[in-house]
């Protein structure tokens, strides 16, 4: 397997096509040991296709890919032995209990029963579900199912854990609990690779990320660096009422910030001095329009790079 110096996952010109449709259009990235690496982008950006190729459950259509120093095209099973996978949709075995899900999954990897039992106890404790071990999967809440899936993905003590949209569809409390568990994994040195279309999730969890759009990588770096590089320090959000077209408002405020973006429901003014810009908004005659100053985030980076909002 790979030495500690070389990347655990490395892609060059990686492509995935489904018939005429190109899901991933030639991307390069490298993920190092112990890193928390993110793929950020809207739905349809090619994140899941990329994850499936890294997880060795989908063949690449072009380019080169190495996972743990091996080629997924020829060594899929050997690589998967060292991967943990948390798919976007729950794939738990609903005919089995929580405990049996972990045991059966460990058996798929060929682990001895005694080893599985020991690990399953620890993992249920880790995801705080020890009291639900004999419960069937179906009655569990979405957040609990996710935690079972995370426990399941760790049963083979993977070198890399792949998480595809780990908190999509969960309520805020369940998300925070999940993030907390993932932070713990990170601190233990587990390499995490995750996709998300949530800015806060990417900022919270990722040491480094790539922003994807239309099957391509449009930017790459640590979250803070990306924000500094592409966005300004602060953003003033102006929310005109229904009588005012944001594009019209944006024209009036063109000089108020370094950069102005009009969205469907609001105008964003990028600036290094939020208070001064907010003042300029009032000067321009929009004093009665609600506005707020905030720090720039990854959402702004995406907007500036693609001209679209991530939630669109």
């Amino acid at each position, binding site marked *: 397997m790979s030495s500690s110096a070389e990347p655990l996952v490395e892609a060059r010109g990686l492509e995935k096509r489904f018939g005429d449709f190109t899901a991933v259009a030639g991307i390069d990235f490298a993920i190092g040991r112990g890193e928390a690496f993110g793929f950020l982008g809207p739905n349809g950006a090619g994140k899941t296709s990329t994850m499936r190729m890294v997880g060795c*459950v989908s063949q690449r259509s072009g380019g080169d890919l190495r996972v743990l120093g091996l080629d997924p095209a020829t060594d899929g*099973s050997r690589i*998967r032995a060292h991967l943990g996978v948390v*798919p976007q949709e729950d*794939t738990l075995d609903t*005919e089995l209990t929580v405990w*049996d899900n972990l045991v059966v999954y460990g*058996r798929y*990897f*060929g682990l001895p029963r005694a080893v599985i039992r020991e690990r399953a106890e620890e993992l249920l404790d880790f995801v705080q579900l020890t009291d639900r071990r004999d419960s069937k999967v179906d009655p569990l809440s979405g957040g609990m199912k996710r935690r079972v899936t995370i426990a399941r993905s760790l049963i083979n003590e993977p070198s890399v854990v792949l998480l595809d949209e780990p908190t999509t569809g969960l309520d805020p409390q369940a998300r925070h609990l999940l993030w907390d568990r993932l932070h713990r994994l990170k601190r233990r040195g587990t390499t995490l690779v995750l996709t998300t279309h949530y800015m806060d999730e990417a900022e919270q969890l990722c040491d480094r990320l790539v922003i994807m759009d239309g099957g391509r990588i449009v930017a790459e770096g640590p979250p803070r660096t990306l924000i500094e590089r592409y966005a300004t320090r602060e953003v003033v959000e102006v929310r005109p009422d229904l009588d005012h077209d944001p594009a019209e408002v944006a024209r009036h405020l063109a000089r108020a910030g370094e950069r102005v973006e009009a969205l469907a429901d609001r105008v964003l003014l990028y600036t290094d001095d939020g208070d001064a810009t907010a003042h300029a908004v009032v000067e321009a005659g929009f004093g009665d329009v609600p506005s707020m100053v905030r720090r720039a985030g990854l959402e702004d980076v995406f907007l500036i790079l693609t001209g679209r909002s991530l939630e669109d």
Partner: protein
Amino acid sequence: MRPVSVARVLEREWLVYRRLWRGVSFTMFGQPVMYLVAMGVGLGSLVDAHSGSVGGFPYLDFVAPGLMVASAVQLAAVESLWPVLAGVMWMRYYEGLVATTVEPAELYTGVVVWTAGKAMMGAVVYLVVAGALGAVSSPLGLLAIPATGLCAAAFAAPIAAYAIGRESDVTFTFLVRVVILPLFLFSGTFFPVSEMPLVLERLAVCSPLWHGTELARAATTGTGSAAAILGHLAFLVTIVALGGWWGTRAFTRRLRA
């Protein structure tokens, strides 16, 4: 194809089966008793009174191996349709399974082997009940068990291959009614195919169920020529091989897209 990976898929099936044991046991044990008593003893007394024997045997002896194989095949067909689509689309646990070291082809093989295995468990029950009713005239009757398993696999292999490629179950009920049910009725289970018009008799030769039934009947009655038995075996093995080729590709295509 690694047998050890296939065995892990079987372990999962066994675990699920163990949990559901009480629910399925009635079907498994009650059905043979009811079928054999109703058809073999009840209807059989009328048949025997009327024609003396069927194919040279008391009707119970004739129909017992037929019921054994036909009920196994019905079960194999149904269990290779909905549960397979559930695994890939509704419950989606196949997706989690093939993210481990197990390959789709190994999952497929496990599914077919399990179905054949369950058919053989059912065959054991049929054999015991039929034996108790005096309808098994040869110790070679034990060979009816693997014959039933082979015939069930000849159904499970292509049907699971078909099911994994579907996006919904709309065709499944149709398939059971239009393919499986006629096969059940006209493959020599209840009466010799020679009783049918020549066209249907010739068609029955294409039915894997007929070959399976003839094999099991040869075993429980201790009759049948070696050439005929080899012919039936060759036919069923060919179907399993063709189905297996299809299923391996279909499972891989669906689960490694």
